[in-house]
């Protein structure tokens, strides 16, 4: 049995069961106890009350991929409609709904949640702890995200899907020009997904700052974790802007406020400012985790730590700060004053400097490393080729005179797909291949993986490169068709063919994963001989992650570990305990007990959904929902008997300690 009192670091003597002093037998009994304490519960109730970060992380990822597939089908429909001039496959109303749903689904229901899911799964493992700081909040975050997605798509099926674009400018999305509940659905769905994002941001930042392994000082945190810390702060500052903006839109539409009504003192431009104050950081929230994946993959496949670690971290932080100062570049055509616009041109260009620094550091890492080419590396190299084009077209868009020519044309569509697919999706798929053995315990098929990469590279460029030219030739965005004599037909047809090749690539990856998850070669704990802590546990990891929380001696945890690397003993195995360490140098501070299974997060999600979804039909549902939320919160925070007893025992000890010895 582990002892009470401060946890302490122990030298590992022998790790083989049955040999050496305490270690072997300790390990056995501790492991068995941990298995029991951290076990998953079976059945539907078990699923609804789950708080294991790995399960929740995988839920985020899989749900996000389902939405990705749906949005991909929407894109395919759009490309089919646009493959010929004056095509009649989709009428304008349906096309407007479909392109809105495509953008909304990709941005709010896929891109951010999938990055969040990767964070939730890997950050606790990479920092050497057993769960996120707030497991019930984590579960709630997933349920509210799922509810938002289901809400949006239910309304879509009921012909009430939003149709004013993924950023829904007023007055087109306002009460006069967007009848029915379409824009309200959109605005309220945002509230769901942003609550989810905020909860993830809080967990990741607290976990990464307070639950790191002993010895993992700030300069030893993996770059993946740094990227997730940075986006957590960005989420906290950016999401409230869009929640307010969509809230104001709902209020204008439901209860006759005048935030955006020019005739009563409001301003449609105010909507744009508030949206893009969120919208620009949002794309960096999607992009920065991908930088983390690139670092993780390159470290392992070049067999060396990333060159210039301090510069890399500084670049991430710098990019995050600067991302909040760019938003007006989405509004250069609105007629704002010159001096203000020039400031945003300068800022939009300067943000290329930290990203450039990172790119140069990675190239040097490759230059001085020993590279092995596997599917994850191919996706990273593809990232270089594709994202840099997107970044450079971004420099073009940063310039006001150039932007006023190509704004709101297919040039912009090309740009943001280059930076989102090139910049975020390529590394994401590389990450999927990289961590597939950790998730499933089996290896994917290498040849099929390489094929999927080449299909994606070719298909993607075939689809989106012609769009640069289409924009320059005058084709605006969000058009359901175009006229015969304009000469846009051939390039559009090419783009549509490319879209088919992208679909083929994704299908190849899906088949690869499905087949090999069941019958691939066994991978073991660390098939890549990688450096971060998650590779030191079994594949897939046990529910408690680490039998003994590890101790870290360098920035590449497993490579810098000694053969007799110490670990931490002393955490209880009969409760779900984690070690809390200090922020700067990760010395042990105290122990924290984490909650286990609970239905409260699911119930809270239901209560919140009732309040939010109902309020667009009848405003009183909002306070009713709030009341239900209050009731569920009482249930959530109601102290358990063991907690009360522990608290009283602790109180007594305090009193005894303070009294002078008799």
């Amino acid at each position: 049995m582990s002892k009470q009192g401060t946890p302490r670091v122990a030298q590992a003597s022998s790790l083989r069961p049955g040999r050496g002093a305490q270690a072997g037998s300790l390990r056995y009994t501790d492991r068995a106890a941990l298995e029991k304490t951290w076990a998953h519960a079976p059945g539907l109730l078990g699923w609804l009350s789950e708080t294991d970060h790995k399960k929740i992380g995988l839920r985020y990822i899989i749900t996000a991929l389902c939405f990705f597939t749906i949005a991909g089908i929407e894109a395919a429909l759009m490309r089919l409609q646009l493959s010929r001039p004056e095509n009649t496959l989709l009428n304008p109303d349906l096309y407007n709904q479909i392109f809105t749903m495509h953008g909304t689904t990709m941005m709010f229901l896929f891109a951010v949640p999938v990055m969040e899911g990767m964070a939730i799964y890997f950050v606790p493992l990479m920092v050497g702890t057993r769960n996120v700081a707030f497991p019930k909040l984590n579960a709630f975050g997933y349920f509210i995200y799922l509810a938002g997605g289901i809400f949006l798509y239910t309304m879509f099926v009921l012909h009430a899907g939003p149709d004013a674009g993924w950023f829904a400018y007023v007055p087109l999305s306002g009460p006069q020009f967007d009848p029915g509940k379409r824009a309200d659905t959109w605005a309220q769905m945002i509230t769901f997904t942003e609550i989810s994002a905020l909860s993830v941001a809080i967990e990741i930042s607290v976990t990464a700052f307070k639950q790191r392994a002993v010895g993992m000082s700030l300069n030893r945190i993996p770059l993946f974790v740094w990227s997730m810390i940075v986006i957590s702060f960005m989420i906290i500052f950016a999401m409230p802007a869009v929640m307010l903006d969509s809230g104001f839109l709902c209020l204008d539409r439901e209860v006759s406020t005048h935030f955006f009504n020019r005739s009563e003192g409001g301003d449609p431009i105010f909507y744009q400012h508030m949206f893009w104050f969120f919208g620009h950081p949002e794309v960096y929230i999607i992009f920065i985790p991908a930088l983390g994946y690139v670092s993780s993959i390159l470290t392992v496949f070049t067999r060396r730590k990333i060159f210039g670690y301090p510069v890399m971290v500084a670049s991430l932080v710098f990019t995050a700060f600067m991302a909040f100062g760019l938003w007006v570049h989405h509004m250069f055509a609105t007629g704002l004053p010159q001096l203000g616009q020039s400031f945003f041109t300068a800022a939009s260009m300067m943000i290329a400097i930290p990203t450039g620094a990172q790119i140069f550091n990675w190239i040097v890492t490759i230059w001085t490393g020993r590279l092995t080419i596997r599917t994850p590396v191919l996706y990273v190299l593809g990232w270089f080729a594709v994202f840099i084009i997107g970044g450079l077209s971004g420099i073009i868009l940063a310039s006001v005179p150039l932007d006023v020519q190509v704004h709101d044309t297919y040039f912009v569509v090309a740009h943001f797909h280059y930076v989102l697919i090139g910049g975020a999706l390529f590394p994401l798929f590389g990450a999927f291949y990289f961590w597939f053995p950790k998730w499933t315990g089996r290896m994917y098929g290498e040849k099929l993986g390489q094929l999927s990469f080449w299909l994606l590279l070719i298909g993607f460029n075939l689809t989106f490169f012609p769009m640069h030219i289409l924009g320059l030739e005058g084709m605006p965005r969000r058009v359901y068709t175009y006229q015969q004599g304009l000469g846009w037909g051939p390039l559009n047809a090419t783009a549509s063919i490319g879209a088919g090749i992208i679909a083929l690539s994704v299908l190849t990856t899906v088949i690869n994963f499905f087949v090999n998850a069941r019958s691939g070669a066994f991978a073991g704990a660390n098939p890549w001989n990688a450096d971060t802590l998650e590779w030191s546990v079994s594949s897939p990891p046990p529910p408690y992650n680490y039998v003994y929380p590890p101790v870290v001696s360098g920035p590449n945890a497993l490579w810098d570990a000694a053969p007799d690397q110490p670990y931490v003993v002393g955490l209880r195995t009969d409760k779900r305990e984690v070690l809390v360490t200090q922020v700067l140098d990760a010395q042990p501070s105290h122990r924290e007990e984490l909650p286990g299974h609970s239905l409260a997060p699911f119930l809270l999600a239901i209560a919140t959904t009732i309040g939010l979804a109902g309020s667009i039909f009848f405003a009183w549902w909002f306070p009713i929902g709030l009341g239900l939320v209050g009731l569920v919160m009482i249930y959530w925070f109601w102290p358990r008997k063991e907690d009360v007893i522990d608290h009283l025992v602790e109180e007594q000890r305090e009193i005894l300690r303070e009294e002078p010895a008799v």
Partner: protein
Amino acid sequence: MIQSVLHPAGIQASRIGSLWNGYMVVLTTVYVIVILWMLVAVWRAHKNAAPQISDAEERPHSITVGVAVGITTVTLIGLLIASVATGSAVGTYGDKKPDALEIDVTGHQWWWEVQYPDPEPDKSFKTANEIHIPLHQPVLLRLATRDVIHSLWIPNLNGKRDLIPGRVNKLWIEADRPGVFRSQCAEFCGLQHAHMALVVIAEPNEKYQQWKSHQQTPANDPVTPEQRHGRDVFLSLPCVNCHAITGDAYATIGPDLTHLATRPTLAAGELLNTKGNLGGWIVNAPAIKPGTAMPPNQIASNDLQDLLAYLESLR
């Protein structure tokens, strides 16, 4: 190319075109250098026996990265300066020129109302979905909207400017070669955003003055009996609720039809202005442009023929 950024026909678009060329040269060079650097790195790393991590081995690379970042910064500053200079030059920011020709453009869902104001009220006139301008003349387009945000974009002449409720935005154009330049709404404005086009016709000053003085005249009186009957049909149908024909009707909801027959297209660029198309549009506009405010009209076929004869006489 009649709707292309890369075929400038005006001074602003030419300046922007030069800036574009400069950017393309610089940015393509940057891309090629970075990708080559990466490919060489990959090729070398494939051959490396072991990774080089010692501090001594890393120092020269720190210098390389520093230099690369420095070059990036300097390049960006250069691009920034070029951009700001071009922006001022194209009058993107709306300075006033005393000899400018001012034209008011109002956006509607989904057509463009164009008005040529004049100090003498009876000399100002309205047309729809087309703008005529004389060559080598600075033209100030004053942009307003009747409903949602639209955006006027004539790629051959200048960048775009949004039409925003409650504001009057300004766009400068100045054509330096004659031609017909197509423009399309560039801010999503609803169901028929895709079919909201406008043509800009740049012509020598004499031709422009001819066109303008003709537009200032009231509508032609019908001459033949069919045309006279056609005018009666026009006045008895819902047409008069929305359309104006100077001398006969004065509504301001739909496009002004006074000189309808002089226009090259109908329905904001969607149809060529032919008798058949006009007839089809009058009878069932929503079938051609779903969502349009123009309603379908039930009308006897001989009445329709006479109406078309009248409308075709509105030169």
